[in-house]
C-alpha cells in the first residue's frame, strides 16, 4: 500500500487522523480548543459477518457520503471529518468554531450529533434497506481538548480521541442495559408482531409459503438480530423464542390460506428448551409448518439434536436448513439434517449474475437437493438479473424484495401479490 493511501481512506475518500491534525493545527491554536466527536457504529461488524466484507465496504461508502453531505450543508467553521484508520469503521469529527463565533455550546454539539446520526441512518436505509439500517446503532462520544502550548498538540488530540472513544463505549453499555429493559418489557407485554415474507414458486410466482419474521413493537427492538443478541446476553433466549413461535403460529391460523406453509426460524439452542415440546405447540396441521434451522449456529450434540428433530418430523413438521452455504461446512453437514428445504445463504444470491463461482455452487446445491428430494430456496433476491439467474439454475423457490416485501398484514395485500413490473415483464 502506498504512503498516501495510509493518509486517505479509499472507501469514504476521507482523510485519516494523521493527515488531518496538521491542517487543523492553526485553528486549534487560535481558538484554544477543539471538540472531538467519536462515532462508534455498533454492529457494523455484524454486517460484515452476515453479508461479507464487500457489503460493509459499501455501507461505509454510504456512511462517509451521508456525513460529508450533512456537513457541507452545516456552517461549521474549521471542522474536519475523518476516519481513524483506512478501511476502519469508526469516524472522528474535530469541531473548531470560526473566529467570529462563540465556542460551541452543548446544545449545538448535541444537535450536530443528532443530525449526523439521522443523516447516516436515513441514507443507509434508503440505499441498503431497513434490515441493514435497523441492525446497527450509532454511539457518539465527545471530548473537549483545551490547547496547552506546553504540550505537543498531536498528543493532546490523540488523548482527546481516546477519551471520546471511551465515552462512546460507555454510551453503548448504557444503551445495552436499556435494551435489556426494553426486551423484558417486550416479553412482559408480548409486544412483538410478525411480518410474513412470501416465498414463491420460481416458475409460477405463486405463493408457496411465508417466513415469519419477528419484530419488536418498541423501536429499539425492531431488528430480530438485535432482539436475539440482547436475549442471548441476558439469558432470555428461550423466553423470546417462545414468544416469537407463539405469535407466528397465531398469525398462521388467521392469515395463511389452506396449503400455504409457515416457515419459522428456530435456533438449535431452542431444542434444549424443555418447553419446546412437539405436543405443546398450538399447531393444528404440523405438515404446514417448516422449522428453519440456521447453518450459522454450531450444533453441539449431533445425535441428541437429530433425536429431537425426529420427534418433530414424526408429527409431520418439515425442516429447512437456513443460510446454507454460509460456512465451510459443505454439503455433508446439510445432508446430516435431511432437510426438506435448503435455504441458500443470501451472500450466494447477492450479484449471482456477476459471479460464476456462486452460479456453480448454487447449481451444485440444486443437484444435491434434487437427488435428496429437497427443494432449494433462494432468499435475498433483490434484482431482476438475480431472479433470472436463479431461475435458470433450477432453484425451486424464491424469496426477496424483488418478488415481494414482508408484511404484517398478509391478508390485505394478497392474493395475488402483484409481481414487480420488471419481473412481470421478465417472466412472460
Amino acid at each position, binding site marked *: *500500500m502506498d504512503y498516501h*493511501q495510509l493518509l486517505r481512506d*479509499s*472507501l469514504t475518500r476521507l482523510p485519516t487522523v494523521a493527515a488531518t491534525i496538521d491542517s487543523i493545527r492553526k485553528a486549534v491554536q487560535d481558538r484554544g480548543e477543539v471538540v472531538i466527536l467519536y462515532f462508534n457504529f455498533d454492529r457494523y461488524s455484524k454486517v460484515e459477518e452476515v453479508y*461479507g*466484507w*464487500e*457489503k460493509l*465496504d*459499501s455501507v461505509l*461508502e454510504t456512511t462517509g457520503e451521508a456525513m460529508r453531505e450533512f456537513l457541507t450543508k452545516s456552517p461549521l467553521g474549521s471542522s474536519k471529518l475523518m476516519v481513524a484508520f*483506512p*478501511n476502519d469503521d469508526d469516524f472522528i469529527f474535530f469541531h473548531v468554531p470560526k473566529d467570529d463565533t462563540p465556542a460551541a455550546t452543548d446544545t449545538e454539539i448535541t444537535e450536530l450529533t443528532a443530525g449526523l446520526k439521522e443523516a447516516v441512518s436515513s441514507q443507509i436505509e434508503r*440505499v441498503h434497506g431497513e434490515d441493514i439500517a435497523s441492525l446497527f446503532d450509532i454511539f457518539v462520544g465527545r471530548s473537549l481538548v483545551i490547547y496547552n502550548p506546553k504540550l505537543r498538540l498531536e498528543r493532546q488530540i490523540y488523548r482527546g480521541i481516546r477519551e471520546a472513544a471511551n465515552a462512546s463505549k460507555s454510551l453503548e453499555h448504557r444503551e445495552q442495559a436499556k435494551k435489556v429493559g426494553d426486551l423484558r418489557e417486550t416479553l412482559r407485554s408480548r409486544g412483538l408482531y410478525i411480518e410474513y415474507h412470501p416465498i414463491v414458486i420460481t416458475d409460477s410466482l405463486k405463493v408457496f409459503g411465508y417466513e415469519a419474521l419477528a419484530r419488536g413493537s418498541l423501536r429499539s427492538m425492531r431488528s430480530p438480530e438485535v432482539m436475539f443478541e440482547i436475549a442471548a446476553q441476558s439469558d432470555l433466549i428461550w423466553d423470546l423464542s417462545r414468544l416469537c413461535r407463539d405469535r407466528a403460529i397465531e398469525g398462521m391460523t388467521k392469515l395463511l390460506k389452506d396449503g400455504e406453509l409457515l416457515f419459522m426460524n428456530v435456533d438449535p439452542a431452542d431444542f434444549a428448551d424443555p418447553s419446546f415440546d412437539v405436543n405443546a405447540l398450538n399447531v393444528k396441521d404440523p405438515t404446514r409448518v417448516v422449522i428453519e434451522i440456521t447453518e450459522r449456529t454450531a450444533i453441539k450434540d449431533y445425535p441428541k439434536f437429530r433425536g429431537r428433530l425426529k420427534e418433530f418430523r414424526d408429527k409431520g413438521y418439515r425442516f429447512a436448513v437456513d443460510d446454507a*452455504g454460509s*460456512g*465451510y461446512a*459443505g*454439503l455433508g453437514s446439510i445432508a446430516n439434517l435431511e432437510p426438506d428445504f435448503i435455504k441458500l445463504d443470501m*451472500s*450466494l444470491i*447477492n*450479484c449471482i449474475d*456477476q*459471479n*460464476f*463461482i*456462486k452460479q*456453480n*455452487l448454487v447449481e*451444485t446445491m440444486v443437484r444435491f437437493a434434487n437427488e435428496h428430494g429437497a427443494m432449494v430456496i433462494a432468499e435475498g433476491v*433483490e*434484482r431482476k*438479473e438475480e431472479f433470472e439467474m436463479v431461475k435458470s439454475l433450477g432453484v425451486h423457490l424464491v424469496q426477496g424484495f424483488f418478488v415481494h416485501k414482508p408484511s404484517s398484514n398478509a391478508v390485505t395485500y394478497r392474493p395475488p401479490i402483484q409481481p414487480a413490473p420488471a419481473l412481470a415483464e421478465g417472466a412472460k
Partner: protein
Amino acid sequence: MADSAHPPILVVDDNPDNAHIIRDYLEARGFPITVAYNGDDALKAFEEVKPSLVLLDVMMPGRDGWQVCREMKQHPTLGRGVRVVMVTALDDWVNKRQALQTGADDFVEKPFELSKLASTVERNVKLLSTNAAAGGSPATSR
C-alpha cells in the same frame, strides 16, 4: 494494443511451463498478456499493468493465490475494476467457498483444457464489457 474485446490479462503461475502455455494461447487470441511467477511479483505487476482480468494459480510458495486475490480485490483504486479467475486443482465445495471469501469471480479446475480456459476468459471479458456499458457493476455487489 488493448481494446474492450481484448483487455489486458495478468497470468500468475509459479510453474513457468504452465504460465507460458496460457500466455501463448491467449496472446494468439489477441489478448495482451503479462506473466508473474509468484505472489509478490503479481501484486507489483497488478499495479503497473492494471489488468482487467487475472488468471491466478492458487498453490504458490510464499504468498498463495488466496492471499493475492484478496489483496487485489481490496486494492483501493484497482480492486473494483478487476475480475479474478482462480486456477486450481482443488475443486470441492469448501475451496469454492474460500475463493468467494477472497473476492474471486470465477474458477478453472486444474488440469484444464485450453478450450475451457478460453471460454472462461471470454465469459469474464463479456461481463466486463456489459458492466462497462452499464456504467459499472451493480452497487449491491460491493
